[in-house]
């Protein structure tokens, strides 16, 4: 039987690419518009493109936080992508201080604009593994260090605890968390659904964890 992958639709971001990536991997993407529907899926993904306060406003107005927490408590795998990953943290500082879902302790901060690099950061970047973490039993289990992924963002996450940083990426002199994890909760700042075969491999790994 095909794995049901819930993709939370809070009216921000491109759900289509993500759905098609999961279809390509022989899973069954389910667009989740109501919190109740979360109970029906095997894996839950929070996508998103846009600003942190707008995203959290839509998530809260549609009463998703409680259902997301209940889902995670069942031990099933949860993954946030781009803004979806940022909203997993406790706090964001885009426009104003906004509370996030608090699934991982830490905050979301603006990329420095003082480097020669351009913000928004729209580019392919390498990811590397911090020494203290292991990629076994994670979405990066089948990923080689130094692989390239596609990023589109102006903010980055800063987890409070090092063990939650699954992968890091350099942006000028800054090294930011490009993937995060805590138990059965994962996140990538980059877009696996737009990163060619290496990106698809991460989503495929999520299906088999």
């Amino acid at each position: 039987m095909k794995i049901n992958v819930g993709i939370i639709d809070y009216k921000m971001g491109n759900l289509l690419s993500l759905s098609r990536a999961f279809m390509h991997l022989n899973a069954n993407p389910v667009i989740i518009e109501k919190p109740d529907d979360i109970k029906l899926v095997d894996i839950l993904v929070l996508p998103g493109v846009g600003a942190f306060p707008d995203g959290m406003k839509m998530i809260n107005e549609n009463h998703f936080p409680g259902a997301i927490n209940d889902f995670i408590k069942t031990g099933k795998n949860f993954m946030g992508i781009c803004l979806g990953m940022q909203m997993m943290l406790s706090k964001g500082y885009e426009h104003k201080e906004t509370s996030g879902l608090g699934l991982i302790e830490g905050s979301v901060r603006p990329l420095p604009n003082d480097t020669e690099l351009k913000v928004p950061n729209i580019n392919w970047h390498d990811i590397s593994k911090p020494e203290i973490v292991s990629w076994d039993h994670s979405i990066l289990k089948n990923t080689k260090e130094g692989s390239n992924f596609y990023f589109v963002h102006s903010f980055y996450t800063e987890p409070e605890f090092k063990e939650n940083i699954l992968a890091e990426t350099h942006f000028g002199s800054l090294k930011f968390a490009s993937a995060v994890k805590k138990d059965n909760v994962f996140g990538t700042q980059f877009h696996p659904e737009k990163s060619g075969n290496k990106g698809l491999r991460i989503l495929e790994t999520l299906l088999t964890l």
Partner: protein
Amino acid sequence: MKRVIARLDIKGNRLIKGVHLEGWRFLTGDPNDFCKKYYTDGADEILYVDAVASLYNRDSLKDIIRKTTENVFVPLTVGGGIRTIEDVTEILRSGADKVAICTQAVKTPEIISKVADKFGSQCMVVSIQAKKDQNGNYKIWYDVAREKTEINVVEFAIKVEELGAGEILLTSVDQEGTGKGMDAELIKMVTEATKIPVIACGGFAQPSDFKVAIDGGADAVAIAKALHYQQTNILAIKEYAESVGIKIRQDEN
């Protein structure tokens, strides 16, 4: 990392290619098959330009976008005949990640801010068609290089950046479709005046042209004819780029 972008000009449901953005010829084969091959070869992005979008309805373009996103998993930019926020919404809903706007950005530059505010500057690409006049000054053309203006290319590039463009697609109309090499002078002028990424387009014939564009300050190069007619391919371009020390994305199949 520097990007290799495959550019596909579309008319109806067919792939076309012209010279100086005119004199279009149809290529044999399904545009989606061309696209799939470029993706498999390691294209970092796909760019569709609907060359005659204003004259025909958009259903075939949307169909091409939809089919593309079923098996191509890199960013997709779509341009041609985009005039309103509604057009942008439609194209993004069909599966595109970014839109490229040319004519409307010249006629009513406010569209750039409107799109950037609503969807983010990361999906607002301004397409600049540049042509040298008899005095050697680069001027803006529009409407698939049929209409001429007296607007200075560098001034226009600075203006679109201020209005919120996330990227510039810079096409040299003089070089376009000729295979005579990239216009390094034009690329240098625009990249020195702006901070946003510039995609250089027009005249690519061989892998060494990639270095010409990158040395000129481009972040990416969009290639059409040289790929469609198999004068070169993305694997060869990337192999060359690496050999001369340009950082590019590595894919694996």
